[in-house]
């Protein structure tokens, strides 16, 4: 098994006729993802390299059996596009778009919640289940199939850690980029819940960064609900207070939300936190090897 995306994924890409959408959508198909449709209003009936294009996501669900939607629509039009996906009948929406106004996402978040649709992102690299499916922009060559689940606020940092795991001979069940915006769909707790229930995942690596209290909440959750070992890495120890570091979510307000506070909260609940991505990967590999020997 894997989580969020896998062999059962039937993908529809909004904006497949555009440059970004076609590049990544077709790249996802080349990896083995079942790309069943594209959507561009007004271009229904066309094809992109053999993939049928529909006017609406709903049509792609009804006619091509799509169950997962990927959104590449530019920021100012993205929230309505996500809303359309939520109402279309797919069970999962993965929003890659960066820079969506936070209040737009506030409304969209609750729409997804009420509809019971799993929303990943926005401002995230997507989800990769190595050997099965890739939905988004995660470069799959840095990840092998394996037993480590990764959940991360950051894209490039995830690739960095994935690459270190691969070089150490470890692989991944799934890699989930949840995005670094203040309001995202699935959060650490949602993804930890999925990994805990996934028989293929034996260890979880969690990559956080300054801002908000999602890591602190996750620490509480890990203590009571997660039996699998969790290794963490937090970025942003040298970020000055009050300065925005690229992701809208990474704003420190007061003492809470600092990297130090997050590290302490996680360590207090028995989660080992690496000082660098390299160290986090090394701890994960070492812990997994310990599990392999049956020492637990």
């Amino acid at each position, binding site marked *: 098994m894997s989580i969020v995306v896998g062999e059962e994924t039937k993908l529809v890409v909004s904006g497949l006729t555009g440059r970004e959408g076609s590049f990544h959508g077709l790249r996802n198909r080349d990896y083995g993802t079942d790309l069943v449709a594209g959507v561009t209003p007004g271009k229904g009936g066309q094809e992109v390299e053999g993939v049928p294009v529909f006017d609406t996501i709903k049509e792609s669900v009804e006619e091509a059996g799509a169950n997962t939607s990927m959104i590449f629509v530019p920021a100012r039009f993205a929230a309505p596009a996500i809303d359309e996906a939520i109402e279309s009948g797919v069970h999962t929406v993965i929003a890659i778009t960066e820079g969506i106004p*936070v209040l737009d996402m506030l409304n969209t978040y609750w729409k997804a919640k009420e509809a019971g649709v799993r929303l990943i992102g926005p401002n995230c690299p997507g989800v990769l289940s190595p050997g099965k499916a890739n939905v988004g922009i995660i470069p799959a060559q840095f990840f092998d199939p394996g037993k480590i689940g990764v959940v991360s606020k950051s894209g490039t940092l995830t690739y960095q850690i994935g690459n270190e795991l691969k070089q150490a001979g470890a692989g991944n069940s799934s890699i989930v980029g949840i995005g670094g915006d203040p*309001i995202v769909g699935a959060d650490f707790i949602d993804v930890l819940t999925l990994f805990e229930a996934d028989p293929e995942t034996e260890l979880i690596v969690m990559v956080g960064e300054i801002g908000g209290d999602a890591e602190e909440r996750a620490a509480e959750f890990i203590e009571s609900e997660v039996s699998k070992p969790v290794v963490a890495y937090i970025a942003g120890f040298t970020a000055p207070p009050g300065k925005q570091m690229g992701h809208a979510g990474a704003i420190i307000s007061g003492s809470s939300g600092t990297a130090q506070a997050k590290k302490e909260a996680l360590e207090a609940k028995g989660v080992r936190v690496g000082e*660098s991505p390299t160290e986090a990967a090394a701890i994960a590999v070492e812990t997994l090897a310990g599990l392999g020997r049956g020492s637990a």
Partner: protein
Amino acid sequence: MDLLEYQGKQLFAKHGVAVPSGEVAATVEEAVAAAERVGYPCAIKAQVLIGGRGKAGGIKIAADRGEAEEHAGAILGMDIFGPRGEGPFRVDQVWIEGGSDIASEYYASVILDRGEKKLLAMVSAKGGMDIEAVAEKDPDALVKRHIDPTREFDAAAARSIVEEAGLDEDARGQAAEVLARLAEVATSEDATLIEVNPLIVTEGREVVALDAKVTIDGNALFRHEDLAEIADTADDPQEAMAKEKGLTYVKLDGNVGILANGAGLCMSTLDVVAQAGGAPANFLDAGGGSKAEAIVNALEVIVSDEKVTAILFNIFGGITRCDEIAKGIVEASAQLDLEVPLVVRLDGTNSAEGLKILAEADLPNLRQEKTMLDAARRVVELAGAAS
């Protein structure tokens, strides 16, 4: 994006929240002229994006022309430090407003609660002081209520909050109206934080916002032309230059210039440089899919900071292709006459091609390192001690 007090008050006034009338001034002469028009007594308030201005001497009351001149002269140009040592924040502008007769001081705010994914309204009868201390010592004195995103938040909905907070009975109607209007500012102006401390009741029993802290969502500026203009006035020369070139840049105090791709990897790079004993000069996220031109622009911004004595490139290519980055480095070296050493770590998509381009260019001041940690150690060594 944070607004200065007077910008926040202008936004409040636009949405019908009562604020003292006043004027902004950048010189002592302008300040005195403004004070003459506003009348005495008037408040002369430093316009900086940090709390604790009053304690730092940045807010003074002037009783006459002589005092207005004296206070404006003292406040303009002063450096203000925040309560946690943030800063310095140089005072370039003062806001002069009419003095208010204060009968009561309240606190009111509307902020985005990321955890609950809702707007949160907070009201207290104990305004005018450090609200974090109030929340800690007397939590019941601060009433917090989430705003239901599916329903209109009007004065009637706000009424129960001000009642629970125990505001003076005759001020509750106006205070509820103010709270509803603040929520309207949040939703219609894309503000993620609005804080009024103090929200006062005057002797004439009028509810007035005496301060304004407002944060606007930078991602929403495309639909607020007036606010976008404010955003264009970055005060730091490197930050202004970066903004013009469409780069995400934050200036820091050290001497190690940093360029990475992705906000997370860039933050992590700052951390490992600090762990290696160095002091980062900046945060610069070149973004996903950076092309050679973006790299030239980024390097130009980094080297324009004279404190920079060495630069670290930490690139892990996902959608970003390392060969594009390498081309950018070679082009930048040709165009910019780089004098400081560059340490480059290229990994990920097309890294072999990228490394080949760098090897062929054979730049005299460029060193390659294979891992992020080795690269951090090397750049710290080359940068020398921060002066």
